[in-house]
């Protein structure tokens, strides 16, 4: 909402500088986005008159306009369709700063040849002047604009650009802002006059109005003015409309727009001669009914939409836009003026369905009070008689099925204190509310009865009144205290704690955390998941995605992680290790998806040497495993690794991670075919862990093992086994012996003299007892039993 201060000053004395006014409005809830000063940037732009228009010699769509600047004439190239001799226009000389009509960026006007003709300036559009977004034609100034006057002087004003919150439709009007300013600066409001003489016939004899669907139209007021003269509205009105960002059209239309901006009530004017049977019916649209609106668009209507109809057909979409058929043209002499109130939800639904948002719908959908309709129509009729002549019919038709009781709220002192943390003195409460137009009666011993003014449709409960008081007095004036109540008992958060520990462990291990988007696309998912998984459990789809790239909720972290890796490889050919801890979303029928906390990591590139250069040793499975081993070790979880397969990983280089026999994760080499689909041409390793499955297992305290006071006996044993025997098998056998305190694998060897198909595993074994010093005989016996069992179970032979 743009509020020109010149206009605002008509309803309230402005005794504050614009900056301070803006600050107070902002603090009180109506944020001032910008203070625009029209005129200041308009150096080298002045009022000019078009004295001649001739065709451009080389271009059909361009013309040459000659303008008079007060003793000086200039000819420029003009592309606007609406330029015509006699017009007063805004003319920019070379060097003027304008807004570029296409890019919207500020630009300096330079001399240019346009299709071979030198153009020494420009006739400006509203957009080029920064007045509005309209770039369809040039800005035509009122006829009495003095030629040669700098535009800033002629149009200049200070305009507050307000960000009005949806609960305050009353602030979508200059009068509403005046009420705020009055309360915030101790002034009083001058209501605009709405009285006039009724010289015509009684309106009841001329027009009939019927509301067929009363739930959607609580009130419909209509006035009739006959004998009007359609023409331009007066300059002062045009200037105000332009300053507020509305394009002047004709006196009748301008008045309806002006009153809407002034008091906040949308109005509509019909050419009465085009209303069939002099009858207005407010009804739901009929199935299949179509209407052409003022903007020339065919609007297919349905039964949920409310229309204003005459005896024959719909003449307006209620609260949104009038129909082209009953538009007030320059030949109109009788104007039927509508000021009505419509159901906000219905207006919003219709607006959404028709994809049509107007200044009117933006106000109706926020909920206006029906009382406003009568105030506005009187004001508009008065302006019509003043500015377009004619006679007003006697009386105003007022069909008012939805009359509401005035809102009265009982507010106790105690509630105000409880909400605001402050006991306000009674006179201050009363004076603050009265300054906003509320009524306030103190009912001893402890309460107020507050009467809400009709324009405040947002105040219903005592806490709303508390906000009114707080925002006018200033939030800064409320006390500042700390919470004094008991701190609620702590609840365990195992899932979050685990997730944060995992992040810390992996970052400490040298991995970089990334956070990728939760939405992805099927194409990416199909690169890393088997087709049957995607078809059996299709991911959730967003029905209105911003782009096809972000259409599906991810069911794995793999794809986005590999994409992140690929994009970084484009500018960093070095060792990269990334991890993400985030959710994947597994659909469940008729339910919210299962959001599973997951971990995934990827690594690629060479190990760095002393000088951080690639050492020529690319990462492999055991680097990837190292992260998992560190992670599970730090979490105190004993996991095992088993040969496995996965759609996206290389067979034989893929291991499943199990905890208590249950699968909790996966580690392996990304299949070169999959890597290539992400444009990665080097070895990549990946791991995944389902953190949710770990939650019940972590956090158990680790049990202490006593330290032996007796010496350990250390010895190395090398055995030869078939290559198919895993290290984990041998390890498990050796560790099962009670005297083996520790067994560490320190060498794996294949090649001569070890026979083909066999490998040698070397272990450093530490024998120790908790209760005595081991004798050589005991150690010998234990070793023999170990070797016997290894021989029996995995065919191991002691290497000589």
């Amino acid at each position, binding site marked *: 909402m743009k509020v020109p201060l010149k206009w605002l000053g008509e309803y309230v004395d402005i005794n504050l500088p614009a900056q301070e006014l803006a600050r107070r409005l902002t603090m009180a809830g109506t944020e001032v986005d910008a203070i625009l000063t029209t005129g200041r940037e308009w150096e080298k732009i002045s009022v000019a008159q078009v004295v001649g228009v001739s065709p451009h010699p080389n271009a059909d769509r361009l013309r040459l306009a000659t303008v008079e600047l007060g003793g000086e004439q200039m000819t420029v190239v003009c592309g606007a369709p609406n330029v015509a001799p006699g017009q007063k226009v805004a003319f920019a000389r070379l060097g003027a700063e304008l807004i570029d009509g296409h890019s919207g960026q500020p630009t300096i006007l330079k001399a240019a040849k346009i299709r071979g003709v030198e153009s020494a300036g420009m006739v400006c559009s509203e957009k080029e002047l920064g007045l509005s977004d309209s770039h369809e034609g040039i800005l035509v100034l009122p006829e009495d604009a003095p030629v040669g006057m700098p535009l800033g002087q002629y149009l200049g004003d200070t305009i507050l650009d307000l960000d009005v*919150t949806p609960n305050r439709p009353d602030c979508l009007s200059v009068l509403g802002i005046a009420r705020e300013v009055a309360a915030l600066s101790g002034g009083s409001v001058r209501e605009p006059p709405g009285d006039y003489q009724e010289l015509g016939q009684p309106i009841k004899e001329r027009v009939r109005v019927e509301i067929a669907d009363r739930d959607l139209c609580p009130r419909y007021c209509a006035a009739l003015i006959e004998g009007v003269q359609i023409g331009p509205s007066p300059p002062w009105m045009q200037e105000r409309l332009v300053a507020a960002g509305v394009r002047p059209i004709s006196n009748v239309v301008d008045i309806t727009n002006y009153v809407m901006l002034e008091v906040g009530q949308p109005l509509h004017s019909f050419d009465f001669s085009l209303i069939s049977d002099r009858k207005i019916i407010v009804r739901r649209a009929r199935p299949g009914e179509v209407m052409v609106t003022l903007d020339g668009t065919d609007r297919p209507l349905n039964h949920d939409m409310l229309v204003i109809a005459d005896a024959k057909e719909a003449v307006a979409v209620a609260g949104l836009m009038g129909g082209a058929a009953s538009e007030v043209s320059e030949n109109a002499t009788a104007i039927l003026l509508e000021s009505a109130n419509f159901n906000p939800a219905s207006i919003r639904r219709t607006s959404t369905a028709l994809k049509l948002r107007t200044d009117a719908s933006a106000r109706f959908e926020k909920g206006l009070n029906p009382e406003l309709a009568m105030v506005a129509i009187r004001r508009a009729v008065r302006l019509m008689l003043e500015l377009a002549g004619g006679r007003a019919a006697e009386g105003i038709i007022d069909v008012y099925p939805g009359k509401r009781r005035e809102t009265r709220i009982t507010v106790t002192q105690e509630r105000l204190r409880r909400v605001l943390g402050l006991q306000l003195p009674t006179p201050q409460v009363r004076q603050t509310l009265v300054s906003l137009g509320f009524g306030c009666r103190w009912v001893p011993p402890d309460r107020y009865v507050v009467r809400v003014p009709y324009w405040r449709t947002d105040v219903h409960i005592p806490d709303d009144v508390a906000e009114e008081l707080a925002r006018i007095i200033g939030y800064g004036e409320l006390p500042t205290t*700390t919470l*004094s109540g008991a701190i609620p008992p702590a*609840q365990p958060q195992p899932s979050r704690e685990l997730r944060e520990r995992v992040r810390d462990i992996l970052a400490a291990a040298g991995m970089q955390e*990334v956070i990728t988007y939760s939405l992805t696309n099927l194409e990416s998912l199909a690169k890393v998941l088997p087709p049957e998984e995607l078809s059996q459990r299709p991911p959730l789809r967003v029905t*209105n995605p*911003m782009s096809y790239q972000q259409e599906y909720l991810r069911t794995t972290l793999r794809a986005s992680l590999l994409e992140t890796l690929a994009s970084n490889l484009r500018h960093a050919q070095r060792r990269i290790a990334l991890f993400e801890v985030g959710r994947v979303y597994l659909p469940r029928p008729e339910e919210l998806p299962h959001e599973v906390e997951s971990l995934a990591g990827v690594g690629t590139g060479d190990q760095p040497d002393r000088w*951080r250069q690639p050492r020529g040793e690319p990462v492999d499975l055991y680097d990837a495993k190292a992260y998992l081993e560190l992670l599970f070790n730090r979490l105190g979880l004993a996991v095992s690794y088993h040969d496995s397969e996965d759609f996206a990983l290389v067979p034989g280089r893929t291991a499943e991670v199990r905890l208590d026999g249950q699968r909790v994760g996966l580690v392996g080499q990304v299949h070169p075919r999959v890597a290539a689909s992400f444009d990665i041409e080097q070895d990549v390793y990946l791991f995944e862990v389902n953190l949710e499955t770990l939650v019940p297992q972590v956090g158990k305290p680790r049990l202490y093992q006593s330290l032996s006071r007796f010496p350990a006996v250390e010895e190395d044993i090398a055995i030869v086994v078939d290559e198919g025997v895993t290290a984990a098998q041998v390890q498990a056998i050796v560790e099962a012996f009670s005297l083996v305190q520790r067994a560490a694998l320190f060498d794996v060897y294949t090649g001569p003299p070890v026979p083909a198909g066999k490998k040698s595993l070397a272990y450093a074994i530490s024998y120790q007892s908790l209760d005595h010093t081991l004798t050589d005989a005991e150690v010998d016996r234990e070793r023999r039993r170990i070797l016997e069992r290894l021989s029996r179970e995995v065919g191991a032979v002691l290497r000589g």
Partner: protein
Amino acid sequence: MILPQLQELKEIEDKARTELAAVSDEEALESWRIAHLGRRSRLNIILRGLASLPIEERRQVGAAANRLRLELEEMLSQRQAQLREATVTAVVERGRLDVTLPGRPLAIGRLHPVTQALRDILAAFVSMGFQVFEGPEVEWDHYNFEAVRIPKDHPARDMWDTLWIDYVRNDEYPMLLRTHTSPMQIRVMEQMQPPVRIVSPGKCYRHEATDPTHEWMHTQVEGLAVDENISMADLKGTLYEFARRLFGRERRVRFRCDYFPFVEPGADMSIDCPLCDGQGCRACGNSGWIEILGAGMVHPEVLANVGYDAERYTGFAFGLGVERVAMLRHGIEDIRLFYANDLRFLEQF
């Protein structure tokens, strides 16, 4: 008359001193020791010959010889210490390194800047007695909108452009990607009775074109405190303390009226711009203030929606954007950098 032995002791001493001055390494020093203090040294011969001297001479010569022996031994140990010191100094000198050379590379991992900022935000509230609760990112319309007083066809829905899940029930889309963390107010209060003091972090989503200050996925922290006797004053005090913990004790805050359907009165809080100290700069739009969170007293209807006694209990709620906090702390000007995950960006934090 001077005894000849005493004369000889004098000569021994002079010679020993002269020779010691020329000693420059441990080997020479050992030769010197053997020559002057060794078994066959002249001094030792004199000492051994003492027994054959007359008693008076023995007394005089013995005293002088023993004094000289102690003196030579003292000179020896001093010289030895000097030589060792010189050796160590020489070794150290040879071992000088260029201390500016880099250490051997260890991989350095880092947490994402959003994780870092989020942790600090949560820690500030946890230390004030708040607990962390988390909830679903895919939500029902009911929790995201209806239960927080944003019914269908309410114009306030424009404040949250929504991504809807392709799932139809009763001709409507009931499932969505939550647009804010406020549904957690309802979920938490459904699960527990007052006193409530929680913060709820998580991702939120908007159907929104991205630009340097808008991102369709972002991280929010919701806060909620409900109890008997909680007022706007507590809201102000708690959030003021939070702002100072996070942005420095010298920060000033400003509360202004704002509108969110689920709070009444509604507020937002700004801090004085940490980049220009409130003087006005590009980051703060020359106002000197930067809005960091929206807040307010929980609307009595929201309390009633979860079955709380809205007469007895009051509370406050707030919501803040984590990326915005991170941007302020690090002077980041484009929010899109966070989820582009360019290592050249991430490795700066």
